């Protein structure tokens, strides 16, 4: 059971980890809880686990770093593999993959910090209005849980929003704002779970606090959708999941706009806290949390390609 780590989402990971740990124990497994720290590899080597349950979010755990180590040690692990984790974690790379696979995703531009510092990229921002329009969304390329995401209503918000986003990563993207319903499709072993809709109760942004505080956001699962909408969302989600080469489980976040679904991102290791969306979707599909955890383990132990 790997949890914690140094990422900004450490707190969320600890909560996900604690829940999964309980479930694993109730399922009768012998659990070795490990903090992702300097001793992790030593403890993994000594403990010789049959499988590693990775409940880490953000840099270090969700980006393929921990997965790479597990591969070297020959320990099977839950969730997507090294390459897929890397693609999910980097929103810019993920969006390129979506485009290549014909999956709809909002238009965007991406910049490195060095492009602004050394190459005068600020002069290129002039093309933004024409290409993306306002408002637009500024986000760090790697990062989760809405940290560092800002809306720019007009030109004058852009520099400040970029400074904020660059606090989290040296690459940021400016993305066309797509108005619509916020939905999440969790995929478990290649199969879609019922669609969850997130309805923030306050403010205009589904932000970090709202995501993890009970009562701040209301969730509807299954979301009220026509069968056509559900089919379109599911197809887009499975397309995104496949485009990034995910396996095991992942969660695809989408906006349902007037002209159909647009994929925002794929979370390689979605949250498993009390307010997270994957457990809610599983429950709507008739699975208990224990059954969900067992299924995730089975997928990790299944022969490659399953």
């Amino acid at each position, binding site marked *: 059971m790997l949890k914690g780590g140094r990422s900004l989402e450490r707190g969320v990971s600890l909560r996900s980890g604690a829940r999964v740990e309980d479930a694993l*124990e109730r399922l009768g497994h012998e659990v070795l809880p490990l903090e992702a720290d300097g001793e992790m590899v030593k403890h993994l080597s000594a403990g010789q686990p049959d499988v590693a349950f990775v409940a880490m979010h953000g840099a270090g755990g969700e980006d393929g770093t921990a997965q790479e180590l597990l591969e070297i040690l020959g320990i099977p692990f839950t969730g997507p593999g090294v390459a897929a984790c890397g693609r999910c974690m980097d929103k810019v790379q993920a969006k390129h993959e979506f485009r290549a696979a014909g999956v709809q995703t909002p238009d965007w531009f991406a910049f490195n910090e060095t492009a602004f510092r050394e190459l005068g990229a600020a002069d290129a921002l002039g093309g933004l209005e024409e290409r993306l329009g306002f408002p637009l969304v500024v986000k760090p390329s790697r990062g989760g849980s809405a940290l560092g995401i800002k809306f720019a209503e007009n030109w004058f918000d852009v520099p400040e929003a970029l400074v904020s986003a660059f606090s*989290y990563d040296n690459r940021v993207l400016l993305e066309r704002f797509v108005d619509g319903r916020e939905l999440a499709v969790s995929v478990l072993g290649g199969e879609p779970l019922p669609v969850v809709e997130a309805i923030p109760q306050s403010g205009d942004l589904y932000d970090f606090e709202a995501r993890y505080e009970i009562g701040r956001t209301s969730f509807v699962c299954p979301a009220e959708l026509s069968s056509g909408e559900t089919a379109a969302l599911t197809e887009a989600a499975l397309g995104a999941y496949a485009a990034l080469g995910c396996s095991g489980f992942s969660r695809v976040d989408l906006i349902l706009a007037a002209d159909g679904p647009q994929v925002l991102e794929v979370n390689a290791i979605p949250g498993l806290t009390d307010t997270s969306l994957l457990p809610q979707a599983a429950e709507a599909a008739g699975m208990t949390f224990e059954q969900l955890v067992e299924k995730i383990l089975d997928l990790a132990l299944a022969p490659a390609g399953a």
Partner: protein
Amino acid sequence: MSDPPHRRRAHASSSDLERYAGLFAERTRVMRSSAMRDLMAITARPEVISLAGGLPDTSTFPPQTFAAQMTRIAQESAAEALQYGPTEGFRETVDCIVEVMGAEGMLPDPDDVIVTTGGQQAIDLICKALVDPGDAVICEAPTYPGAIPVFCSYQAETIQIECDAEGMRIAELEDTLERLELEGRRPKFIYSVPTFQNPAGVTMSLERRRRLVELARQRELLVVEDNPYGLLRFGGEALPPLYQLDGGDYVLYIGTFSKILSPGIRLGWAVAPPPVMEKVVLGKQASDLCTSTLTQYFVREYFAEGRWREYIASLGDIYRSRRDAMVEALGRYFPPQASWTEPEGGLFIWATLPPYIDTSDLLARALREDVAFVPGQAAYVDGRGRNSMRLNFSAGDENEIREGIRRIGKAIEAQVELYGALTGGAEGPHMPAGAAEDMGGIDSQSNPSPSISDSPETDSTVVPFRKAGGA
């Protein structure tokens, strides 16, 4: 590595959550946790220099003194010290409190004093006695971040009055009171930390203190004076507390042993006129019956020794030197557009950065440099304070402070440089032709604002902060 064996409850499913959600009191909708809880979860790493806490340095309290006093309690009064005590607190504790307040020139009637479980409980009990949902409560902007969750949990409407270098702007307070009166409303109380304010470090001037007390009298309004730091003065002249100026008719007073002795003993107090006190006592009975008897015995023993003034003086020496180190480091490592307060006491400095820097995001960059601070937003109810931060100088030594400020300075420098690259630096924002006409107030080389949260200097009563590089 693994935890000791224990039973854990089954996890909550989403239908359980729905069921609990239906049971939650209305007030939980507005209850707030500390905004940066998750980011702070990683500041516990040992390599992080945290300037975020508000911890006094308890390491200089002599362990032998502590041991001797606790031994004496065990030998002489074990049964009593392990027993419940009166809700109001022991008379002996109140005597110590009267002595402490006397050191700042106050002379409370011992019957007006209640011993509380920290100053935080005093805020809670006063709200419990006075605040109904929707009532207006007035406080400073910025205000003590720990007071906001209390006001929120009693569903108060919190109205914040701008602070400058001389504390709460009383002219703005008067305007606000006028506006409320037109709406047919009266605030339940005005909460102020007039001396070495948390988080801003500023002290209300004598003139403003007098006006505030006068205003309270004229309008028959209550003022809650929270004074945890008054005795931690290490420069300048002491000013009379509001309680002393008023005589205790309209000013309720909150004190604590946390910063002058120990926060671990959880001992604070409130002083209020008898009608208010009666309700506060009833509220405390319902909350916790009485404050820890054991720690009240400890305080009694400690005061009997008669060296408490020396101890506070020694803390003052330590904190002065740490403040000096921080101020010096700020001058060296923060950019010229930054400004900060220079407190003559207390535990905190409030720094304000160029308006385009959001300190919540800056914290993410700072944490990569292994340093933490409190983003200014935590001290406001309305999202203001985004470009400010609270810096604590009491918890770490001079070297840690210098290194911590150097690291924060490095993170700020990166933001400033980037903003410069994005906007063309001092020449103004880098915008396509035409866009610049609508530039409004954004200015990459903005002057530090005299106020704590960037409102224009239109008022002759505004007293600017010291500016970086200035006198």
